[in-house]
Protein backbone atom coordinates (compact mmCIF):
# COMPACT_ATOMS: atom_id res chain seq x y z
CA UNK A 1 0.00 0.00 0.00
CA UNK A 2 1.17 3.57 0.39
CA UNK A 3 0.15 6.78 -1.23
CA UNK A 4 -0.80 6.82 -4.87
CA UNK A 5 0.64 9.08 -7.48
CA UNK A 6 -1.40 11.84 -9.02
CA UNK A 7 -2.37 11.66 -12.66
CA UNK A 8 -2.93 15.06 -14.15
CA UNK A 9 -4.75 15.52 -17.42
CA UNK A 10 -2.83 17.29 -20.18
CA UNK A 11 -5.02 20.05 -21.62
CA UNK A 12 -5.47 20.97 -25.25
CA UNK A 13 -3.90 24.29 -26.03
CA UNK A 14 -5.16 26.93 -28.41
CA UNK A 15 -2.21 28.78 -29.91
CA UNK A 16 -2.44 32.55 -29.51
CA UNK A 17 1.13 33.16 -30.67
CA UNK A 18 4.50 31.38 -30.64
CA UNK A 19 4.75 32.32 -26.96
CA UNK A 20 1.16 32.40 -25.70
CA UNK A 21 -1.31 29.51 -25.37
CA UNK A 22 -4.78 29.20 -23.98
CA UNK A 23 -6.63 26.47 -22.08
CA UNK A 24 -10.33 26.83 -22.72
CA UNK A 25 -12.89 27.23 -19.92
CA UNK A 26 -14.45 23.85 -20.67
CA UNK A 27 -11.26 22.02 -19.61
CA UNK A 28 -12.45 21.93 -16.01
CA UNK A 29 -15.83 22.44 -14.38
CA UNK A 30 -16.06 25.75 -12.58
CA UNK A 31 -13.54 27.66 -14.69
CA UNK A 32 -14.79 31.22 -15.07
CA UNK A 33 -12.09 32.35 -17.51
CA UNK A 34 -9.58 30.63 -19.79
CA UNK A 35 -6.04 30.04 -18.56
CA UNK A 36 -3.27 31.70 -20.53
CA UNK A 37 0.25 30.26 -20.49
CA UNK A 38 3.24 32.25 -21.67
CA UNK A 39 5.78 29.74 -22.95
CA UNK A 40 7.76 28.61 -25.96
CA UNK A 41 6.54 25.30 -27.44
CA UNK A 42 9.48 23.59 -25.75
CA UNK A 43 8.63 25.00 -22.31
CA UNK A 44 4.94 24.22 -22.84
CA UNK A 45 5.65 20.58 -23.69
CA UNK A 46 8.03 20.13 -20.75
CA UNK A 47 5.85 21.89 -18.18
CA UNK A 48 4.94 19.86 -15.10
CA UNK A 49 1.28 18.87 -15.64
CA UNK A 50 0.45 19.98 -12.11
CA UNK A 51 0.96 23.55 -13.34
CA UNK A 52 -1.98 23.21 -15.72
CA UNK A 53 -4.08 21.68 -12.97
CA UNK A 54 -3.24 24.57 -10.65
CA UNK A 55 -3.68 27.41 -13.12
CA UNK A 56 -7.07 26.04 -14.16
CA UNK A 57 -8.07 25.83 -10.47
CA UNK A 58 -7.11 29.51 -10.16
CA UNK A 59 -9.47 30.18 -13.09
CA UNK A 60 -12.39 29.08 -10.86
CA UNK A 61 -11.81 31.77 -8.22
CA UNK A 62 -14.72 34.21 -7.76
CA UNK A 63 -14.14 37.59 -9.38
CA UNK A 64 -11.22 36.58 -11.60
CA UNK A 65 -10.92 38.80 -14.68
CA UNK A 66 -9.98 37.82 -18.20
CA UNK A 67 -7.45 34.96 -17.60
CA UNK A 68 -5.61 32.91 -15.01
CA UNK A 69 -2.02 33.46 -16.16
CA UNK A 70 1.11 31.36 -15.95
CA UNK A 71 4.49 32.82 -16.80
CA UNK A 72 7.20 30.85 -18.68
CA UNK A 73 9.08 30.07 -15.49
CA UNK A 74 5.95 28.40 -14.13
CA UNK A 75 6.24 25.33 -11.94
CA UNK A 76 3.99 23.66 -9.43
CA UNK A 77 3.32 25.49 -6.19
CA UNK A 78 0.50 25.51 -3.62
CA UNK A 79 -2.88 26.61 -4.85
CA UNK A 80 -1.48 28.92 -7.49
CA UNK A 81 1.38 27.67 -9.63
CA UNK A 82 4.59 29.55 -9.06
CA UNK A 83 4.59 32.00 -11.96
CA UNK A 84 0.84 32.54 -11.46
CA UNK A 85 -0.99 35.83 -11.93
CA UNK A 86 -4.67 36.55 -11.34
CA UNK A 87 -6.51 39.88 -11.26
CA UNK A 88 -9.76 40.05 -9.27
CA UNK A 89 -12.76 42.34 -9.53
CA UNK A 90 -12.87 43.36 -5.90
CA UNK A 91 -15.90 45.62 -6.39
CA UNK A 92 -17.95 42.58 -7.34
CA UNK A 93 -17.06 39.85 -4.88
CA UNK A 94 -13.53 39.19 -6.08
CA UNK A 95 -11.46 37.20 -3.59
CA UNK A 96 -8.01 37.43 -2.06
CA UNK A 97 -6.07 34.17 -1.69
CA UNK A 98 -2.88 33.71 0.35
CA UNK A 99 -1.92 30.94 -2.10
CA UNK A 100 -1.78 33.66 -4.76
CA UNK A 101 0.96 35.40 -2.82
CA UNK A 102 2.88 32.56 -1.23
CA UNK A 103 4.24 31.95 2.25
CA UNK A 104 7.27 34.08 1.52
CA UNK A 105 5.41 37.36 1.20
CA UNK A 106 7.37 39.85 -0.93
CA UNK A 107 10.10 37.45 -1.77
CA UNK A 108 11.84 39.75 -4.21
CA UNK A 109 14.98 41.05 -5.83
CA UNK A 110 17.14 44.08 -5.34
CA UNK A 111 19.89 45.33 -7.66
CA UNK A 112 22.54 47.94 -6.99
CA UNK A 113 25.30 49.37 -9.09
CA UNK A 114 28.87 50.34 -8.32
CA UNK A 115 31.28 52.48 -10.33
CA UNK A 116 33.81 49.63 -10.13
CA UNK A 117 34.92 47.45 -13.03
CA UNK A 118 35.60 43.73 -13.10
CA UNK A 119 39.36 44.33 -13.15
CA UNK A 120 39.12 46.50 -10.04
CA UNK A 121 37.02 43.98 -8.12
CA UNK A 122 38.66 40.68 -9.17
CA UNK A 123 41.69 40.96 -6.84
CA UNK A 124 39.33 41.58 -3.91
CA UNK A 125 36.63 39.07 -4.83
CA UNK A 126 37.26 36.44 -2.15
CA UNK A 127 37.64 39.10 0.53
CA UNK A 128 34.34 40.69 -0.56
CA UNK A 129 32.44 37.39 -0.61
CA UNK A 130 33.87 36.30 2.77
CA UNK A 131 32.99 39.66 4.32
CA UNK A 132 29.50 39.60 2.81
CA UNK A 133 28.98 36.07 4.15
CA UNK A 134 29.73 37.39 7.65
CA UNK A 135 27.79 40.63 7.31
CA UNK A 136 24.61 39.15 5.83
CA UNK A 137 23.72 36.01 7.77
CA UNK A 138 22.30 33.21 5.64
CA UNK A 139 20.88 29.80 6.36
CA UNK A 140 18.62 28.25 8.96
CA UNK A 141 18.42 30.11 12.23
CA UNK A 142 20.37 33.14 11.11
CA UNK A 143 19.78 36.29 13.15
CA UNK A 144 20.02 39.86 11.99
CA UNK A 145 22.22 42.48 13.64
CA UNK A 146 19.33 44.92 14.14
CA UNK A 147 17.76 44.19 17.52
CA UNK A 148 14.07 44.96 17.94
CA UNK A 149 11.68 44.87 20.83
CA UNK A 150 8.27 43.54 19.80
CA UNK A 151 6.88 47.06 19.73
CA UNK A 152 9.73 48.37 17.57
CA UNK A 153 9.24 45.46 15.17
CA UNK A 154 5.52 46.25 14.92
CA UNK A 155 6.44 49.84 14.00
CA UNK A 156 9.03 48.66 11.48
CA UNK A 157 6.59 46.37 9.67
CA UNK A 158 4.19 49.30 9.27
CA UNK A 159 6.91 51.62 7.95
CA UNK A 160 9.03 49.24 5.85
CA UNK A 161 12.10 50.79 4.22
CA UNK A 162 11.20 54.17 5.72
CA UNK A 163 11.98 52.78 9.17
CA UNK A 164 15.42 51.68 7.98
CA UNK A 165 16.31 55.02 6.37
CA UNK A 166 15.09 56.93 9.45
CA UNK A 167 17.33 54.74 11.61
CA UNK A 168 20.44 55.11 9.49
CA UNK A 169 20.22 51.94 7.39
CA UNK A 170 20.07 53.42 3.94
CA UNK A 171 19.87 56.53 1.79
CA UNK A 172 16.70 58.54 1.13
CA UNK A 173 17.06 57.90 -2.62
CA UNK A 174 16.67 54.15 -1.97
CA UNK A 175 12.99 54.67 -1.22
CA UNK A 176 12.14 56.06 -4.64
CA UNK A 177 14.01 53.15 -6.20
CA UNK A 178 11.86 50.57 -4.43
CA UNK A 179 8.41 49.39 -5.46
CA UNK A 180 5.79 51.20 -3.38
CA UNK A 181 8.60 53.47 -2.16
CA UNK A 182 9.41 50.63 0.22
CA UNK A 183 6.21 50.92 2.23
CA UNK A 184 2.68 49.64 1.73
CA UNK A 185 0.61 52.24 3.55
CA UNK A 186 -2.28 49.94 4.50
CA UNK A 187 -0.09 47.77 6.75
CA UNK A 188 -1.57 47.17 10.21
CA UNK A 189 0.58 45.25 12.67
CA UNK A 190 -2.41 44.48 14.91
CA UNK A 191 -3.53 42.04 12.20
CA UNK A 192 -0.33 40.01 12.61
CA UNK A 193 -0.29 37.28 15.24
CA UNK A 194 2.13 37.23 18.13
CA UNK A 195 3.60 34.10 16.60
CA UNK A 196 4.39 35.99 13.39
CA UNK A 197 6.10 38.77 15.38
CA UNK A 198 8.12 36.23 17.40
CA UNK A 199 9.22 34.38 14.28
CA UNK A 200 10.38 37.42 12.40
CA UNK A 201 11.67 39.99 14.87
CA UNK A 202 15.23 38.68 14.94
CA UNK A 203 15.53 38.06 11.23
CA UNK A 204 15.74 41.54 9.69
CA UNK A 205 18.99 41.66 7.71
CA UNK A 206 19.16 37.93 6.93
CA UNK A 207 19.13 36.14 3.61
CA UNK A 208 17.30 32.90 4.38
CA UNK A 209 18.18 29.77 2.44
CA UNK A 210 17.02 27.63 -0.47
CA UNK A 211 17.02 29.72 -3.62
CA UNK A 212 17.89 32.94 -1.79
CA UNK A 213 21.25 34.44 -2.57
CA UNK A 214 23.49 37.49 -2.80
CA UNK A 215 25.57 37.77 -5.96
CA UNK A 216 28.36 39.98 -7.22
CA UNK A 217 27.81 40.15 -10.97
CA UNK A 218 29.55 41.58 -14.01
CA UNK A 219 28.12 43.42 -17.03
CA UNK A 220 29.92 41.89 -19.99
CA UNK A 221 29.72 44.28 -22.97
CA UNK A 222 28.26 41.57 -25.23
CA UNK A 223 25.41 41.11 -22.71
CA UNK A 224 24.02 44.64 -23.05
CA UNK A 225 20.90 44.38 -25.22
CA UNK A 226 19.54 47.92 -24.90
CA UNK A 227 22.34 50.44 -24.54
CA UNK A 228 20.12 53.48 -24.07
CA UNK A 229 18.01 52.02 -21.27
CA UNK A 230 21.05 50.35 -19.67
CA UNK A 231 22.66 53.78 -19.45
CA UNK A 232 19.51 55.31 -17.95
CA UNK A 233 19.47 52.53 -15.33
CA UNK A 234 23.10 53.35 -14.48
CA UNK A 235 24.67 50.33 -16.19
CA UNK A 236 27.95 50.44 -18.14
CA UNK A 237 30.22 47.78 -19.75
CA UNK A 238 32.47 45.72 -17.42
CA UNK A 239 30.66 47.16 -14.43
CA UNK A 240 30.30 45.27 -11.20
CA UNK A 241 26.78 45.18 -9.77
CA UNK A 242 25.25 43.36 -6.81
CA UNK A 243 21.94 41.51 -6.83
CA UNK A 244 20.20 39.73 -3.99
CA UNK A 245 17.07 37.66 -3.54
CA UNK A 246 15.24 37.17 -0.26
CA UNK A 247 11.91 37.77 1.44
CA UNK A 248 10.02 38.27 4.67
CA UNK A 249 11.52 35.31 6.50
CA UNK A 250 9.60 33.67 9.33
CA UNK A 251 7.32 36.69 9.68
CA UNK A 252 5.77 36.40 6.24
CA UNK A 253 5.72 32.62 6.45
CA UNK A 254 3.68 32.73 9.66
CA UNK A 255 1.24 35.33 8.26
CA UNK A 256 0.61 33.02 5.30
CA UNK A 257 0.14 30.04 7.62
CA UNK A 258 -2.18 31.95 10.01
CA UNK A 259 -4.48 33.32 7.34
CA UNK A 260 -4.64 30.15 5.29
CA UNK A 261 -6.11 28.49 8.40
CA UNK A 262 -8.44 31.42 9.01
CA UNK A 263 -9.76 31.36 5.43
CA UNK A 264 -10.29 27.60 5.55
CA UNK A 265 -12.68 28.10 8.49
CA UNK A 266 -14.88 30.59 6.64
CA UNK A 267 -14.51 29.97 2.93
CA UNK A 268 -17.25 27.40 2.48
CA UNK A 269 -19.30 27.86 5.65
CA UNK A 270 -19.59 31.64 5.54
CA UNK A 271 -19.05 32.58 1.90
CA UNK A 272 -20.20 29.49 0.06
CA UNK A 273 -16.99 29.19 -1.96
CA UNK A 274 -16.17 25.56 -2.71
CA UNK A 275 -12.68 24.43 -1.72
CA UNK A 276 -11.03 22.74 -4.72
CA UNK A 277 -7.61 22.85 -3.13
CA UNK A 278 -6.98 23.84 0.48
CA UNK A 279 -3.95 25.87 -0.55
CA UNK A 280 -6.30 27.92 -2.77
CA UNK A 281 -8.29 29.01 0.29
CA UNK A 282 -9.71 32.48 -0.18
CA UNK A 283 -12.26 34.97 1.09
CA UNK A 284 -13.94 37.96 -0.54
CA UNK A 285 -11.48 40.86 -0.56
CA UNK A 286 -14.05 43.13 1.09
CA UNK A 287 -14.88 40.67 3.89
CA UNK A 288 -13.46 41.19 7.42
CA UNK A 289 -11.18 38.18 6.91
CA UNK A 290 -10.05 39.40 3.49
CA UNK A 291 -9.29 42.88 4.81
CA UNK A 292 -7.43 41.57 7.85
CA UNK A 293 -5.22 39.39 5.66
CA UNK A 294 -4.59 42.25 3.22
CA UNK A 295 -3.42 44.46 6.09
CA UNK A 296 -1.23 41.69 7.54
CA UNK A 297 0.14 40.84 4.08
CA UNK A 298 1.18 44.48 3.69
CA UNK A 299 3.14 44.15 6.94
CA UNK A 300 4.86 41.13 5.40
CA UNK A 301 5.65 43.16 2.28
CA UNK A 302 7.08 45.96 4.42
CA UNK A 303 9.18 43.63 6.55
CA UNK A 304 10.72 42.23 3.39
CA UNK A 305 11.49 45.72 2.09
CA UNK A 306 13.07 46.49 5.47
CA UNK A 307 15.01 43.23 5.28
CA UNK A 308 16.43 44.04 1.86
CA UNK A 309 17.08 47.65 2.88
CA UNK A 310 19.12 46.47 5.86
CA UNK A 311 21.03 44.00 3.69
CA UNK A 312 21.75 46.80 1.20
CA UNK A 313 23.20 48.84 4.05
CA UNK A 314 25.48 45.95 5.03
CA UNK A 315 26.63 45.47 1.42
CA UNK A 316 27.60 49.14 1.24
CA UNK A 317 29.50 48.78 4.53
CA UNK A 318 31.44 45.76 3.24
CA UNK A 319 32.44 47.35 -0.06
CA UNK A 320 33.38 50.55 1.72
CA UNK A 321 35.58 48.60 4.17
CA UNK A 322 37.31 46.53 1.47
CA UNK A 323 37.93 49.46 -0.89
CA UNK A 324 38.57 51.92 1.95
CA UNK A 325 36.19 54.35 0.22
CA UNK A 326 32.73 55.62 1.23
CA UNK A 327 29.89 53.80 -0.50
CA UNK A 328 28.71 57.10 -2.01
CA UNK A 329 32.06 57.46 -3.76
CA UNK A 330 31.79 53.89 -5.01
CA UNK A 331 28.54 54.81 -6.76
CA UNK A 332 26.56 52.19 -4.88
CA UNK A 333 23.12 53.29 -5.99
CA UNK A 334 20.11 51.06 -5.98
CA UNK A 335 18.67 50.36 -9.42
CA UNK A 336 15.35 48.96 -8.17
CA UNK A 337 13.69 46.55 -5.78
CA UNK A 338 10.87 44.33 -7.04
CA UNK A 339 8.42 42.07 -5.24
CA UNK A 340 7.48 38.76 -6.80
CA UNK A 341 5.06 37.43 -4.18
CA UNK A 342 2.39 40.04 -3.47
CA UNK A 343 -1.15 41.21 -4.10
CA UNK A 344 -1.61 44.84 -5.03
CA UNK A 345 -4.52 47.11 -5.91
CA UNK A 346 -3.76 48.55 -9.33
CA UNK A 347 -5.73 50.44 -11.96
CA UNK A 348 -6.21 49.16 -15.51
CA UNK A 349 -8.33 50.08 -18.49
CA UNK A 350 -10.99 47.39 -18.99
CA UNK A 351 -13.68 47.70 -21.67
CA UNK A 352 -12.78 51.34 -22.13
CA UNK A 353 -13.08 52.22 -18.44
CA UNK A 354 -10.50 52.61 -15.69
CA UNK A 355 -10.97 50.02 -12.97
CA UNK A 356 -9.17 49.15 -9.73
CA UNK A 357 -8.45 45.44 -9.41
CA UNK A 358 -6.48 43.25 -7.02
CA UNK A 359 -3.55 41.62 -8.83
CA UNK A 360 -2.10 38.47 -7.27
CA UNK A 361 1.47 37.72 -8.35
CA UNK A 362 2.90 34.49 -7.02
CA UNK A 363 6.42 34.11 -8.41
CA UNK A 364 5.74 36.86 -10.95
CA UNK A 365 7.11 40.40 -11.22
CA UNK A 366 5.32 43.67 -11.81
CA UNK A 367 6.29 45.11 -15.18
CA UNK A 368 4.95 48.65 -15.62
CA UNK A 369 5.78 50.47 -18.84
CA UNK A 370 6.68 54.07 -19.71
CA UNK A 371 4.27 56.72 -18.48
CA UNK A 372 2.69 54.61 -15.75
CA UNK A 373 1.53 57.01 -13.01
CA UNK A 374 2.68 54.61 -10.28
CA UNK A 375 6.31 54.96 -11.32
CA UNK A 376 8.68 57.59 -9.92
CA UNK A 377 9.83 60.33 -12.27
CA UNK A 378 13.20 58.64 -12.84
CA UNK A 379 11.46 55.72 -14.59
CA UNK A 380 8.58 57.52 -16.30
CA UNK A 381 10.30 57.66 -19.69
CA UNK A 382 11.72 54.14 -19.68
CA UNK A 383 9.28 52.01 -17.70
CA UNK A 384 10.29 50.25 -14.49
CA UNK A 385 13.36 48.05 -14.12
CA UNK A 386 12.44 44.37 -13.87
CA UNK A 387 14.90 42.01 -12.20
CA UNK A 388 14.62 38.31 -13.02
CA UNK A 389 16.98 35.90 -11.30
CA UNK A 390 18.48 32.81 -12.90
CA UNK A 391 20.18 29.85 -11.22
CA UNK A 392 23.50 30.36 -9.43
CA UNK A 393 25.38 29.02 -12.43
CA UNK A 394 23.67 30.80 -15.31
CA UNK A 395 23.18 34.43 -14.39
CA UNK A 396 20.22 36.80 -14.16
CA UNK A 397 18.62 39.56 -16.18
CA UNK A 398 17.72 43.21 -15.87
CA UNK A 399 14.77 44.06 -18.10
CA UNK A 400 12.32 46.92 -18.50
CA UNK A 401 8.55 46.94 -18.06
CA UNK A 402 6.21 47.52 -20.98
CA UNK A 403 2.82 48.91 -21.97
CA UNK A 404 2.07 45.48 -23.48
CA UNK A 405 2.35 43.91 -20.02
CA UNK A 406 -0.16 46.44 -18.69
CA UNK A 407 -2.55 45.57 -21.53
CA UNK A 408 -2.04 41.82 -21.68
CA UNK A 409 -0.99 40.44 -18.28
CA UNK A 410 -2.13 43.00 -15.72
CA UNK A 411 1.36 44.42 -15.71
CA UNK A 412 3.16 41.15 -15.02
CA UNK A 413 6.10 39.11 -16.20
CA UNK A 414 8.24 36.17 -15.01
CA UNK A 415 10.39 36.17 -11.86
CA UNK A 416 13.06 33.52 -12.29
CA UNK A 417 14.08 30.36 -14.09
CA UNK A 418 11.58 27.96 -12.60
CA UNK A 419 12.57 24.62 -11.12
CA UNK A 420 12.29 21.43 -13.12
CA UNK A 421 13.65 18.96 -10.57
CA UNK A 422 12.73 18.23 -6.97
CA UNK A 423 15.19 19.17 -4.22
CA UNK A 424 15.36 15.54 -3.14
CA UNK A 425 16.37 14.42 -6.61
CA UNK A 426 18.90 17.25 -6.95
CA UNK A 427 20.55 16.19 -3.67
CA UNK A 428 20.75 12.66 -5.00
CA UNK A 429 22.31 13.70 -8.32
CA UNK A 430 24.61 16.54 -7.34
CA UNK A 431 27.18 17.20 -4.65
CA UNK A 432 27.74 20.66 -3.24
CA UNK A 433 31.52 20.21 -3.13
CA UNK A 434 31.64 19.30 -6.85
CA UNK A 435 29.44 22.24 -7.77
CA UNK A 436 31.70 24.59 -5.83
CA UNK A 437 34.73 23.38 -7.76
CA UNK A 438 32.89 23.56 -11.10
CA UNK A 439 31.78 27.11 -10.47
CA UNK A 440 35.25 28.11 -9.31
CA UNK A 441 36.66 26.77 -12.57
CA UNK A 442 34.20 29.10 -14.36
CA UNK A 443 35.35 32.04 -12.31
CA UNK A 444 32.49 32.05 -9.76
CA UNK A 445 33.53 32.09 -6.09
CA UNK A 446 30.76 30.75 -3.85
CA UNK A 447 30.46 30.78 -0.09
CA UNK A 448 27.59 28.76 1.27
CA UNK A 449 26.09 27.97 4.66
CA UNK A 450 25.11 24.49 3.45
CA UNK A 451 26.69 22.06 0.96
CA UNK A 452 23.46 20.05 0.77
CA UNK A 453 21.51 23.23 0.20
CA UNK A 454 23.94 24.12 -2.59
CA UNK A 455 23.36 20.78 -4.32
CA UNK A 456 19.63 21.47 -4.30
CA UNK A 457 20.33 24.69 -6.21
CA UNK A 458 22.35 23.14 -9.05
CA UNK A 459 21.76 24.90 -12.37
CA UNK A 460 20.53 21.67 -13.94
CA UNK A 461 17.54 21.73 -11.55
CA UNK A 462 16.23 24.83 -13.32
CA UNK A 463 14.82 25.79 -16.70
CA UNK A 464 17.06 27.61 -19.16
CA UNK A 465 16.89 31.26 -18.03
CA UNK A 466 17.70 32.51 -21.53
CA UNK A 467 14.70 30.66 -22.94
CA UNK A 468 12.41 31.99 -20.21
CA UNK A 469 13.61 35.55 -20.76
CA UNK A 470 13.26 35.27 -24.52
CA UNK A 471 9.62 34.30 -24.09
CA UNK A 472 8.95 37.41 -22.01
CA UNK A 473 10.85 39.52 -24.55
CA UNK A 474 9.05 38.03 -27.56
CA UNK A 475 5.69 38.41 -25.81
CA UNK A 476 6.79 41.97 -25.01
CA UNK A 477 5.75 41.66 -21.36
CA UNK A 478 9.26 42.68 -20.36
CA UNK A 479 12.20 43.61 -22.58
CA UNK A 480 15.83 42.57 -22.14
CA UNK A 481 18.23 45.31 -21.09
CA UNK A 482 21.28 43.40 -19.84
CA UNK A 483 22.27 39.90 -18.77
CA UNK A 484 24.27 39.82 -15.53
CA UNK A 485 26.80 37.06 -14.94
CA UNK A 486 27.78 35.99 -11.40
CA UNK A 487 31.38 36.06 -10.20
CA UNK A 488 30.76 35.88 -6.44
CA UNK A 489 27.89 34.30 -4.54
CA UNK A 490 26.71 34.06 -0.93
CA UNK A 491 24.18 31.31 -0.32
CA UNK A 492 22.19 30.12 2.66
Amino acid at each position, binding site marked *: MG*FGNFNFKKPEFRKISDVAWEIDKNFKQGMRVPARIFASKKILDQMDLQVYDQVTNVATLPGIIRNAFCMPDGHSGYGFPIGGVAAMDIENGGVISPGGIGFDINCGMRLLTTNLTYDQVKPHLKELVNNLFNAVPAGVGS*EGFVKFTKQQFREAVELGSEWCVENGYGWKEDLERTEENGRMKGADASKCSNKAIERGMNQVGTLGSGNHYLEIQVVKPENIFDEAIAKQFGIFPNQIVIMFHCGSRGFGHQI*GTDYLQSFLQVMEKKYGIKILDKELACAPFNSPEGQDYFKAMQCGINMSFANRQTILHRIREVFSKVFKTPAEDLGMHQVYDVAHNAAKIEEYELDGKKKKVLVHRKGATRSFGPGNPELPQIFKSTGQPVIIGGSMETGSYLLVGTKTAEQETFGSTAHGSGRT*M*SRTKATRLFRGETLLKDMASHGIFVKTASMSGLAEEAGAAYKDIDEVINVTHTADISRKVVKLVPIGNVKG
Partner: protein
Amino acid sequence: MPYKYLEGFTSADICFEASGKNLEELFESAGLATTNTMVKNLKKISSKEKAKISIEADTIENLLFKFLEEIIFLKDARRLLLSKFKIKIDKGKAHSLACEASGEKINIKKHEMIVDVKAVTWHKFEVRNEGKVWRARVILDI
Protein backbone atom coordinates in the same frame (compact mmCIF):
# COMPACT_ATOMS: atom_id res chain seq x y z
CA MET B 1 13.76 4.40 8.86
CA PRO B 2 10.38 5.75 9.92
CA TYR B 3 10.34 8.37 7.16
CA LYS B 4 11.63 8.88 3.64
CA TYR B 5 11.87 11.82 1.27
CA LEU B 6 10.02 11.47 -2.01
CA GLU B 7 10.85 12.72 -5.48
CA GLY B 8 8.26 13.62 -8.07
CA PHE B 9 5.69 15.37 -5.85
CA THR B 10 7.09 18.85 -5.76
CA SER B 11 9.82 20.67 -7.62
CA ALA B 12 10.45 23.60 -5.32
CA ASP B 13 10.04 22.00 -1.91
CA ILE B 14 10.40 18.83 0.16
CA CYS B 15 7.95 15.93 0.36
CA PHE B 16 8.25 13.19 2.95
CA GLU B 17 6.32 10.08 3.90
CA ALA B 18 6.36 9.18 7.58
CA SER B 19 5.03 6.04 9.24
CA GLY B 20 4.47 4.54 12.65
CA LYS B 21 2.69 1.58 14.22
CA ASN B 22 0.45 3.96 16.13
CA LEU B 23 -0.43 7.62 16.00
CA GLU B 24 2.21 8.68 18.52
CA GLU B 25 4.94 6.98 16.50
CA LEU B 26 3.64 8.51 13.29
CA PHE B 27 3.75 12.00 14.77
CA GLU B 28 7.23 11.39 16.13
CA SER B 29 8.42 10.24 12.68
CA ALA B 30 6.89 13.27 11.00
CA GLY B 31 8.55 15.55 13.56
CA LEU B 32 11.93 13.94 12.93
CA ALA B 33 11.45 14.19 9.17
CA THR B 34 10.74 17.90 9.54
CA THR B 35 13.87 18.53 11.58
CA ASN B 36 15.95 16.29 9.30
CA THR B 37 14.91 18.49 6.37
CA MET B 38 16.83 21.30 8.04
CA VAL B 39 19.74 19.45 9.67
CA LYS B 40 21.83 16.72 8.14
CA ASN B 41 22.52 14.62 11.22
CA LEU B 42 19.90 14.42 13.98
CA LYS B 43 22.38 12.61 16.28
CA LYS B 44 24.39 15.84 16.57
CA ILE B 45 21.46 17.57 18.25
CA SER B 46 21.75 17.25 22.03
CA SER B 47 18.78 17.29 24.41
CA LYS B 48 19.74 20.36 26.42
CA GLU B 49 16.64 22.39 25.63
CA LYS B 50 13.05 21.41 26.38
CA ALA B 51 9.81 22.50 24.79
CA LYS B 52 6.23 21.58 25.63
CA ILE B 53 3.76 21.38 22.78
CA SER B 54 0.03 21.19 23.58
CA ILE B 55 -2.51 21.36 20.80
CA GLU B 56 -6.08 20.42 19.99
CA ALA B 57 -7.78 19.88 16.69
CA ASP B 58 -10.99 18.48 15.28
CA THR B 59 -9.30 15.93 13.00
CA ILE B 60 -6.10 13.89 13.08
CA GLU B 61 -4.94 15.71 9.94
CA ASN B 62 -5.36 19.09 11.59
CA LEU B 63 -3.59 17.78 14.72
CA LEU B 64 -0.55 16.63 12.73
CA PHE B 65 -0.55 19.88 10.74
CA LYS B 66 -0.54 22.00 13.89
CA PHE B 67 2.15 19.81 15.49
CA LEU B 68 4.52 20.30 12.55
CA GLU B 69 3.67 24.01 12.43
CA GLU B 70 4.76 24.29 16.06
CA ILE B 71 8.12 22.64 15.33
CA ILE B 72 8.68 25.17 12.52
CA PHE B 73 7.58 28.06 14.73
CA LEU B 74 10.00 27.07 17.53
CA LYS B 75 12.85 26.83 15.02
CA ASP B 76 12.46 30.56 14.29
CA ALA B 77 11.06 32.00 17.53
CA ARG B 78 13.39 30.12 19.89
CA ARG B 79 16.01 28.94 17.34
CA LEU B 80 15.32 25.39 18.50
CA LEU B 81 16.08 22.20 16.63
CA LEU B 82 13.91 19.45 18.11
CA SER B 83 15.00 15.85 17.71
CA LYS B 84 13.23 13.94 20.50
CA PHE B 85 9.49 13.80 20.96
CA LYS B 86 7.54 12.12 23.78
CA ILE B 87 4.00 12.30 22.55
CA LYS B 88 0.62 11.45 24.01
CA ILE B 89 -2.49 11.75 21.82
CA ASP B 90 -6.06 11.58 23.03
CA LYS B 91 -8.54 10.78 20.33
CA GLY B 92 -11.87 12.00 21.48
CA LYS B 93 -14.43 14.38 20.09
CA ALA B 94 -11.58 16.86 20.00
CA HIS B 95 -8.19 15.30 19.43
CA SER B 96 -5.49 16.58 21.74
CA LEU B 97 -1.74 16.17 21.79
CA ALA B 98 0.71 16.73 24.62
CA CYS B 99 4.37 16.52 23.73
CA GLU B 100 7.58 16.94 25.66
CA ALA B 101 10.17 17.72 23.04
CA SER B 102 13.85 18.21 23.46
CA GLY B 103 16.65 19.51 21.31
CA GLU B 104 19.23 22.20 21.06
CA LYS B 105 19.57 25.78 19.90
CA ILE B 106 20.86 26.11 16.36
CA ASN B 107 24.65 26.10 16.28
CA ILE B 108 25.95 26.38 12.73
CA LYS B 109 29.41 25.21 13.77
CA LYS B 110 28.03 22.01 15.22
CA HIS B 111 24.89 21.31 13.20
CA GLU B 112 25.29 20.88 9.49
CA MET B 113 22.28 22.81 8.23
CA ILE B 114 20.53 22.05 4.95
CA VAL B 115 17.62 24.36 4.15
CA ASP B 116 15.17 26.48 6.09
CA VAL B 117 11.58 25.21 6.31
CA LYS B 118 9.11 28.06 5.87
CA ALA B 119 5.84 26.28 6.46
CA VAL B 120 3.96 23.00 6.33
CA THR B 121 1.46 22.95 3.46
CA TRP B 122 -1.85 21.26 2.78
CA HIS B 123 -0.57 20.27 -0.64
CA LYS B 124 -1.12 16.49 -0.99
CA PHE B 125 -1.24 16.31 2.81
CA GLU B 126 -2.65 12.97 3.83
CA VAL B 127 -2.84 10.76 6.91
CA ARG B 128 -3.90 7.14 6.49
CA ASN B 129 -4.58 4.31 8.87
CA GLU B 130 -3.61 1.13 7.06
CA GLY B 131 -4.39 -1.21 9.94
CA LYS B 132 -0.94 -2.19 11.15
CA VAL B 133 0.64 1.07 10.19
CA TRP B 134 -0.22 4.76 10.15
CA ARG B 135 1.21 6.79 7.28
CA ALA B 136 1.42 10.49 6.50
CA ARG B 137 2.57 12.38 3.43
CA VAL B 138 3.58 15.98 3.95
CA ILE B 139 5.03 18.70 1.73
CA LEU B 140 7.11 21.38 3.45
CA ASP B 141 7.57 24.79 1.87
CA ILE B 142 11.29 25.59 1.59
